[in-house]
């Protein structure tokens, strides 16, 4: 599906990755426009329900990104998030959801170029996977 433009939602923490994405912008680094960034105070605030809802409402991929370990503005939010994602990933994998559509990363406020690279490579990955139909079609039944 060469023309397929995936919808990707990025849940990012305001202190590191959001600032990193901002740096990518002010540095005029071009990257894939498929990503919609949603800013959160901390990765610790990002509930797994946000990810599930994104898929149900049309996302083909989800990025979750925040401060590197030991760099959290609130000291430990990213450590808590890390534990959560370790368990969550295993769980949805057992359920047969596509974990290749989930991307977790640490991007600091100084890593604008790395942010662009993560978005580019993940967009390419999701583009190859195609639209996440199976989950969305099931979700459509919810709305009827």
């Amino acid at each position, binding site marked *: 599906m060469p023309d397929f433009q995936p919808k990707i939602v990025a849940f990012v923490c305001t202190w590191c990755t959001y600032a990193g994405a901002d740096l990518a912008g002010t540095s005029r680094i071009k990257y894939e426009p498929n990503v919609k960034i949603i800013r959160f105070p901390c990765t610790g605030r990002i509930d797994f329900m946000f990810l599930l809802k994104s898929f149900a409402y049309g996302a083909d991929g989800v990025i979750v990104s925040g401060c590197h370990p030991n760099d959290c503005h609130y000291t430990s939010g990213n*450590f808590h998030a890390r534990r959560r994602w*370790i368990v969550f990933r*295993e769980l*949805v994998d*057992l*359920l047969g959801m596509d974990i290749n559509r989930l991307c977790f*990363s640490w991007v600091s406020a100084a890593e604008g170029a790395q942010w662009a690279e993560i978005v580019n490579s993940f967009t390419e990955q999701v583009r190859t996977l195609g639209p996440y139909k199976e989950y969305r079609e099931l*979700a459509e*039944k*919810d709305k009827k």
Partner: protein
Amino acid sequence: MESIRKKAKELLEKNAVQVIIGYGEGLDKSVSAIFVRKPENAETLIFDDRCVHNLAVYLLKNEIKALGKPCIIAHLAALRTILQLASEHQITEDDVLVLGVTHKGELMEFAGFKDIEKYIASANIDISENEKEIINKLEAMTREERWQFWVEHLSLKCIKCYACRAACPLCYCSRCQVEYNQPQWITVEATPVGIIEWHITRAMHIAGRCVSCGECYRACPMNIPINLLNYLTVLTIKEKFNVSAGTSADLDSVMSSFKSDDKENFIKQS
């Protein structure tokens, strides 16, 4: 069985406890939980192979709390539940008198939670081979097959009666996430994705706390193996963080604690 009845009678006569939470004969050869409040009724208590239910679920119910101090007949999983509840500050040693039973029906008396910890340390608390095998089988399938399996067995079957929640001794929140409607995270009606979201939510909220008693599966009227989701979190947490729930009364909550060197292999970094 006799020793349980004798002990129960004695405790009620002494008024050491006001209610015994134990197993009794139910309808049609089934077993149900009974709440014995008079010494002469201690004869109705039973214990045999059918007594597998986790009675610890009743410890936090307001109706039972209102009866006075309880004594609970607790098998291994229930003992673990009690320690887990203690670690979550839901019960203290003074709130409950614990009478342990081995699977053969032998009575065990404990001096305190520390004593229970010792017993659990020596017991086998692994997930049964049978369930491990099913999880392994699922993991060996392709992703699409697994998805099909759960759509068929969970998404299109579950009626969202929340029996799993009611039977789970660790689902004690006075207001569950599914009852919130601003925002409404999980649909009220039994819709395919709403069902999956509910079971993921439950597994995640029980993660690190589940003592794998299997009560959710037993309670399920549709016979959905939902306990597998919880067991997977149990296995993952044991493997990655080396913690087993219900092994100590002072255990830190797994999902609200962390180690700075928790290992993962999927977070991208430059």
